């Protein structure tokens, strides 16, 4: 009964969104304030109803109402509380519902917190957002209906896929979806600016804030996904260049490029049209991953069943692309060109353009690699595979380019090829980077790389990373010095720069982390009870395999005592868990993490009868922790930058500053 109400609410949401589009379009054409407000209320109504419908689903999940097919397929009576909640979004219909819900909430937020300067483009923003929402609600009531009933209601559900029963399930999808949906706002503002015919004052400020918020959420979501793969899947890596991973990376790349284009737009008024295009593409590609996996075109760890949703998605994406392309074609020329005649020389803005080029090239390569198997099969009929080795041929070069661009770009200035104190900065930072790189190489034990892996590249890469970090820091110190070390004043005026500094340092930490991993340090050993093995300075003694019963799984843990240099470091338990309902055997990783490396142990096989003999795979993953730390640092930097009050409102401050 509640389920029927839930469905009805979603139906009303769809109708409300359609009304919202129509009234917003009329409001735009007639500049009619009442119609716009009605359109905004339509979106608010959708938001309220969507939230209530979501509440109904959550309630039904906890009530274990198996008459709802979605709940039957994704939960069971023995499912722990937290996973009962995450069952909301663990499969096709629910995940689409979460996505739509978040989009509705953020769209409503955007319409209510708009900058009064942008009042005249809000009807266009409302129309764009609600057009997308209308389609998403349409899917929710047709192909992707979470409230479909099944009778007679079973007594127990089918249970959740074991891989998804993980605390990460509570944060990775919502965070990532927040990123995707928040990108809708800059996209809507871009379409609005095109339809309206100009990028007005105040547009940049709002768009920048939303893009930063989306960027923070995407960075967090992507790295959380990597951490989950690392902790769960047992192959001791965290990024497999899987199609869905790639399609979460592409919007992130476009968002990063957008943020940098907006900097140039803010300072010089150039690259306005590029910002518009990037904002739209970032949002467009956020649907890309969902499309290629749900249409069954590519199978992936994230694959849900192939469903008729595929053609529908294709139709939507194609029409969205067509419409926006037409709008852009007709309206882009009226986007007024830059404030004053400017010239591109060797200067900061050129460095920013080079950064754009590198980022967009990376996006293009990831896209080509992900789509190539489909395209080649369609054209030649022959199946091909594109996996990590392909991407790892190109990505390091782009990473290298970005490392250099970050440091060089940051120390350059606008409109001039002179860098104040440039030579001194470069030399000093190089000297400072030597001990830093040395520390990284020594403590990260880079020299312990296997012959098959490129040692030279790692050394050079780490040196460049360190040099970049020192360059950035030197530039920051130089700027604070010109204000006579008045840090408070510096921060009050340069929060965006400081946030950018932290975010860049975060990225460089991540790059240093990437350079350290996968050096082929591993060992496979079969041990009897009491036997030990030496590996990378660790003394590992196998005790026995323990069998424990948990909520809904049986856990087979291999106990290993770890010692290093005579110090007892404790017991790690690489394990396999067997789930009752599905019978899958999954890895639980035995992990001993230090700052500089992880000891990563998996239980490959064991004697099921006595539990006294087992095969383990031991890996040393160096500098992995850097990547997780980098996530925090980057998000922190992004969040700081959001609070800058001066960006995007420059012209107001230079003349009309408060006396």
């Amino acid at each position, binding site marked *: *009964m509640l389920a*029927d*109400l839930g469905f*009805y*609410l979603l139906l*009303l949401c769809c109708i*409300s969104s359609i*009304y919202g589009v129509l009234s917003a379009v009329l*409001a735009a054409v007639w*500049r*009619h*304030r*009442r*119609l*716009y*407000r*009605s359109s905004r*209320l*339509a979106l*608010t*109504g959708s938001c309220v*109803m969507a939230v209530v419908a979501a509440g109904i689903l959550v309630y039904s999940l906890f009530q274990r109402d198996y008459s709802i097919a979605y709940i039957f397929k994704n939960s069971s009576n023995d499912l722990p509380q937290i996973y009962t909640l995450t069952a909301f979004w663990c499969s096709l219909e629910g995940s689409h519902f979460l996505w739509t819900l978040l989009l509705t909430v953020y769209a409503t937020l955007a319409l209510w917190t708009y900058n*009064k*300067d942008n*009042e*005249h483009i*809000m*009807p266009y923003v409302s129309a764009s957002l609600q057009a997308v929402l209308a389609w998403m609600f349409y899917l929710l009531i047709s192909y992707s209906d979470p409230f479909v009933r099944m009778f007679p209601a079973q007594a127990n559900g089918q249970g959740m896929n074991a891989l998804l029963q993980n605390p990460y399930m509570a944060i990775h999808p919502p965070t990532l979806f927040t990123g995707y949906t928040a990108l809708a706002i800059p996209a809507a503002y871009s379409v609005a600016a095109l339809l*309206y*015919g*100009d990028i*007005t*004052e*105040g547009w940049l400020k709002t768009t920048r804030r939303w893009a930063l918020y989306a960027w923070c959420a995407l960075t967090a979501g992507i790295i959380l996904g990597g951490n989950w793969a690392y902790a769960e899947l047992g192959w001791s890596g965290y990024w497999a260049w899987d199609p869905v991973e790639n399609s979460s990376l592409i919007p992130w790349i476009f968002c990063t490029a957008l943020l940098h284009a907006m900097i140039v737009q803010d300072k010089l008024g150039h690259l306005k049209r590029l910002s518009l295009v990037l904002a739209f593409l970032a949002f467009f590609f956020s649907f890309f991953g969902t499309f290629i996996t749900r249409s069954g075109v590519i199978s992936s760890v994230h694959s849900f069943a192939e469903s008729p949703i595929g053609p529908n998605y294709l139709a939507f994406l194609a029409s969205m692309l067509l419409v926006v392309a037409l709008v852009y074609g007709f309206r882009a020329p*009226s986007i*007024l060109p830059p404030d004053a005649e400017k010239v591109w020389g060797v200067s900061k803005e050129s460095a920013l353009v080079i950064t754009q080029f590198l980022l967009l090239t990376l996006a293009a390569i990831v896209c080509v690699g992900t789509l190539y198997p489909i395209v080649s099969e369609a054209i030649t009929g022959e199946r091909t595979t594109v996996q990590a080795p392909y991407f790892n041929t190109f990505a390091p070069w782009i990473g290298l380019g970005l490392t250099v661009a970050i440091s060089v770009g940051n120390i350059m200035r606008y409109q001039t090829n002179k860098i104040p104190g440039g030579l001194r900065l470069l030399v000093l930072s190089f000297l400072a980077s030597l001990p830093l790189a040395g520390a990284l190489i020594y403590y990260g034990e880079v020299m312990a790389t296997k012959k098959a892996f490129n040692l030279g590249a790692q050394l050079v890469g780490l040196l460049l990373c360190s040099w970049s970090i020192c360059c950035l820091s030197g530039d920051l110190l130089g700027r604070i010095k010109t204000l006579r070390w008045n840090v408070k004043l510096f921060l009050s005026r340069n929060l965006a720069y400081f946030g950018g500094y932290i975010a860049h340092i975060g990225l460089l930490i991540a790059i240093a982390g990437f350079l350290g991993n996968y050096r082929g340090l591993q060992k496979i050993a079969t041990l009897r009870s009491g036997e030990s093995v030496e590996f990378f300075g660790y003394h590992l003694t196998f005790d026995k395999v323990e069998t424990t019963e948990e909520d809904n799984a049986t856990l087979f843990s291999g106990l290993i005592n770890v010692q290093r240099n005579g110090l007892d470091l404790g017991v790690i338990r690489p394990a396999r868990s067997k789930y009752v309902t599905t019978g899958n055997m999954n890895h639980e990783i035995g992990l001993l993490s230090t700052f500089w490396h992880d000891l990563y142990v998996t239980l490959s096989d064991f004697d099921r009868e006595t539990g006294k003999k087992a095969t383990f795979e031991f890996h040393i993953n160096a500098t992995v922790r850097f990547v997780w730390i980098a996530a925090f640092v980057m998000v922190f930097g992004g969040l700081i930058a959001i609070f800058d009050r001066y960006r995007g409102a420059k*012209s*107001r401050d230079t003349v*009309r500053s*408060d006396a």
Partner: protein
Amino acid sequence: MIYVMVLIGVLLISTLLTPFWLGRGGLLQASASINSQSQLAALKEALLKAYINDEKAFTAGAMPSRSWLQRRDFLTNRYIDAARRLDFLIRTQTASGGAS
């Protein structure tokens, strides 16, 4: 249940219709969609007048300072938008011959 559904439907529709009798109507501020130079020039003058009036209200103490600052920035932005559009129109319309 059907009553709940009908009630919700009615609530939604009435919410959607409220702006048509509550609150102020009028036009959303616009300039980039205006294609007439005389209209833009008039808009600029109107903005200047509004600025002067608000400034008087502020100096007389009738408007709190925060409102005045927001109002001032808003009017300045509108003026800049209108002026830019006017510059653009003057250039493109005199180039193609004839203003409107």
